[in-house]
């Protein structure tokens, strides 16, 4: 019955060469589960780095004077903070970590389409990350022109740091493209026979949409950064006005990537929430088909709205108008998703555990951030608040309140799958409470600051804004403290947490239909055919969720 082909034997053949146990995680493993966890841990490390930098920012801003660090250091810190958080934490974790771990299970495959490419993609990240951070020490100065690296500023700041920044982002972008090629092939081509596209769990669709965005937009960023590095190294004049260049072209090309990038950061999170909510509400995902269409709608609209970051850059009026309308319409497909999630919860049997709390926190925060996003999309409104703390507030509500909250929810939800042990619920709820309060304390006042005249990317500000900034800094401190229960929980549980069993949530998706942690080949026998990943409330035999999970 089992006529193994050479390809199938590969993992076993490799095994003598591969280290066993925890050392696997430091090797060039081609197992998608190992790679997924590598992404997760590596990303979390960089989250702490980015958070430390955020702490430095909030410490500087606790007083109106520029007194904590030199002004150019402040610019380096905020540039590194933005770059690390986006390219080394959010993107690798919501895409790389969960994508690699879950997608093969969901499509019923033993591994990704290109396991070796997958490992290469991961191993591009740590060097890129360390390169980025070490630029401060090695090149004498890190990049100072913000994560947007607008020329001509980026042509005049210390060149070495900027070039290292470009190199690092190119590596990370390449890693992201390799990952996306892999996800597209896996979702479209590796499905187990009998499994139809419209039976896939929502996360597969989210990753398909995200990967399309990556493939279509990331190369443009690579291209524009190559041109920028020419300007810095070879003194060409693409973006140098004194040599006849045009800086707005840079902005167009940069945002052609970086707007889709925000959906690259949030679509996978949408997918993860769509997996978590039905399990803990014990109800099918509401409106599966419209959810799929809305993902594709967001992908399409996401590609044609980039210039809303450039409303004050002297773009022609018709362009501003077009981008206002196109951007606003993203509210429609996004809204569909949110209403469907609410409908999923409605009438369910909701377990208010940590995974659920973080998911619901995500809904609240994201709706808030989305609504401020819609206000920003209106040209006349944006003219006043562009480049102010209102924008900083908007996007932290989405990237932190949205995506990071989902990452935490996912951690509580899938940790038993990763390790076979349940995270402690009390610590989890404490973590949620601290994070939720700290987060809102930190970023809510920033909207008010922006409206009243505090620009972003400044180390010093008008003393009338002191109080609100201090509130914000206290919030940041609370967020820093909130990582403690999480760290303790993750580390202690790994060694002495409560055994979870294979399927503690009694979930229906394929990754739960195997042991926890899963065997190398994912399932001992054939891959199960899961045609109803959300078939809650419909089956005959009663099978209870474990009591721990039912709290």
């Amino acid at each position, binding site marked *: 019955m089992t006529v193994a082909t050479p390809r199938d034997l590969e993992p076993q053949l490799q095994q003598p060469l591969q280290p066993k146990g925890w050392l696997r995680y430091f090797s060039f493993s081609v197992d998608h589960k190992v790679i997924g966890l590598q992404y997760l841990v590596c990303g979390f490390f960089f989250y702490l780095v980015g958070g430390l930098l955020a702490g430095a920012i909030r410490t500087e801003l606790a007083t109106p004077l520029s007194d904590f660090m030199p002004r150019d250091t402040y610019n380096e810190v905020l540039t590194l903070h933005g770059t690390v958080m986006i390219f080394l934490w959010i993107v690798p974790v919501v895409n790389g970590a969960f994508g690699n771990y879950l997608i093969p299970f969901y499509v019923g495959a033993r591994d990704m389409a290109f396991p070796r490419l997958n490992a290469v993609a991961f191993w591009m990240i740590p060097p890129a990350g360390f390169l980025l951070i070490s630029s401060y020490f090695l090149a004498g100065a890190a990049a100072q*022109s913000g994560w947007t690296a607008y020329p001509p500023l980026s042509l005049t700041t210390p060149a070495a740091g900027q070039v290292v920044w470009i190199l690092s982002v190119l590596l990370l972008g390449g890693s992201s493209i390799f990952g996306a090629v892999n996800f597209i092939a896996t979702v479209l081509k590796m499905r187990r026979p009998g499994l139809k596209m419209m039976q896939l769990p929502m996360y597969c669709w989210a990753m398909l949409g995200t990967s399309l965005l990556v493939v279509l937009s990331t190369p443009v960023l690579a291209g524009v950064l190559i041109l920028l590095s020419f300007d810095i190294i070879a003194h060409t004049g693409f973006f140098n006005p004194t040599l006849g260049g045009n800086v707005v072209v840079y902005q167009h090309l940069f945002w052609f990537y970086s707007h889709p990038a925000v959906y690259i950061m949030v679509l996978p999170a949408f997918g993860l929430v769509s997996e978590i909510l039905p399990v803990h509400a*014990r109800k*099918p995902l509401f409106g599966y088909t419209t959810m799929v269409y809305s993902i594709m709608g967001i992908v399409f609209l996401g590609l044609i709205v980039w210039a809303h970051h450039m409303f004050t850059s002297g773009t022609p009026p018709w362009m501003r108008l077009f981008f206002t309308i196109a951007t606003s319409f993203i509210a429609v497909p996004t809204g569909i998703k949110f209403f469907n999630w609410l409908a999923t919860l409605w009438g369910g049997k*909701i377990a208010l555990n940590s995974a659920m709390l973080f998911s619901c926190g995500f809904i*609240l925060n994201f709706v808030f951030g989305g*609504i401020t996003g819609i206000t920003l999309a209106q040209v*006349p409104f944006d*003219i006043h608040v562009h480049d102010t703390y209102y924008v900083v507030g908007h996007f932290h509500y989405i990237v932190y309140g949205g995506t990071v909250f989902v990452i935490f929810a996912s951690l509580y939800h899938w940790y038993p799958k990763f390790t076979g042990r349940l995270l402690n619920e009390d610590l989890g709820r404490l973590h949620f409470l601290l994070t939720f309060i700290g987060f809102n304390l930190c970023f809510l006042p920033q909207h008010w600051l922006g409206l009243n005249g505090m620009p972003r990317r*400044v180390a010093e500000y008008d003393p009338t804004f002191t109080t609100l900034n201090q509130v914000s800094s206290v919030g940041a401190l609370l967020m820093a403290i909130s990582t403690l229960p999480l760290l303790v929980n993750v580390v202690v549980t790994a060694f002495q947490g409560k055994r979870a069993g294979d399927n503690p949530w009694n979930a229906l998706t394929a990754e739960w239909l195997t042991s926890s942690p899963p065997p190398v080949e994912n399932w001992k026998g054939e891959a199960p055919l899961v045609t109803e990943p959300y078939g809650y*409330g419909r089956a005959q035999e009663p099978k209870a969720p474990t009591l721990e999970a039912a709290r």
Partner: protein
Amino acid sequence: MRMARAVKIRAAITTALATASLGLTGFLVGTRVNLLPVDASTNAPTYDSLFKVLFSIGTMLFLGISIVLIYSLVRFRRNEGELADGPPLEGNLPLEIVWTAIPAVVILFVGIYSYDIYDRMGGMTPLDHGALHHQHAMDTPSHTMEAKSMEMPSERVWGGIGPAIDTGVASTSSASGAVLPVEVTAMQFAFIFHYPEADITSGELHVPLGQPVELRMKALDVIHAFWVPQFRLKQDVIPGQPTVLSFTATRPGTYPAICAELCGPYHGGMRTSVVVHEVDDYQTWLQQNRPAPSST
């Protein structure tokens, strides 16, 4: 039967009441809570009316969704030890249509409204036609954009905000009606204002109340942005791309003028003041600062 109908009616009434009170709350919050600094230009009240509308709609949506979410969490919470699943509801087409249509309508309304606001602020005024070359345009109204840019290619204006459509406020208070041109040079890390008519150069912007001002902006090194929060106006100043920004001040006082685009280490310190004078005070200021006629 009658019981069921009564329940239905009660549900309908509750829904209607809830929606109404939500709308009212949103409206009250949006119109009463003021998060903005004082308004000091003809733009500002226009802007603020948009803000009120957005704030109202935003409050309604956010409150509504929060209430539904929290209600669900409380009402549908699983009891200790309960093992059953919820009902297997997979979707509902009419509902899907409703919550596609409502945001679409809201968005269309907001979009059209904010277009109107933008037009009233002067954002849609074609700049190459009238803004920078008022005198020309008045002399020869037939001048086309092409003709003009051929005449003086270096004078091409790249973007910005033109003179606002008369909102009434401006026309009554601007006695002279003529536009006051000011040349603005942005550099690391200061704005320099030059008054071509009076040949004054200043580090602060002084403008008279009620007279339309046209800032003709240039940047020397990197991108800067000129922002006066109380005017609700901001414009990037991009090297190589002359830009205009028009406004009419409506409230005397001193306001900050802030550089809003990261331009280097001292970006945070790149700020100055806009002083809005009563018309007479402005004349005095002009007299005092007019350069002494050079003795030739």
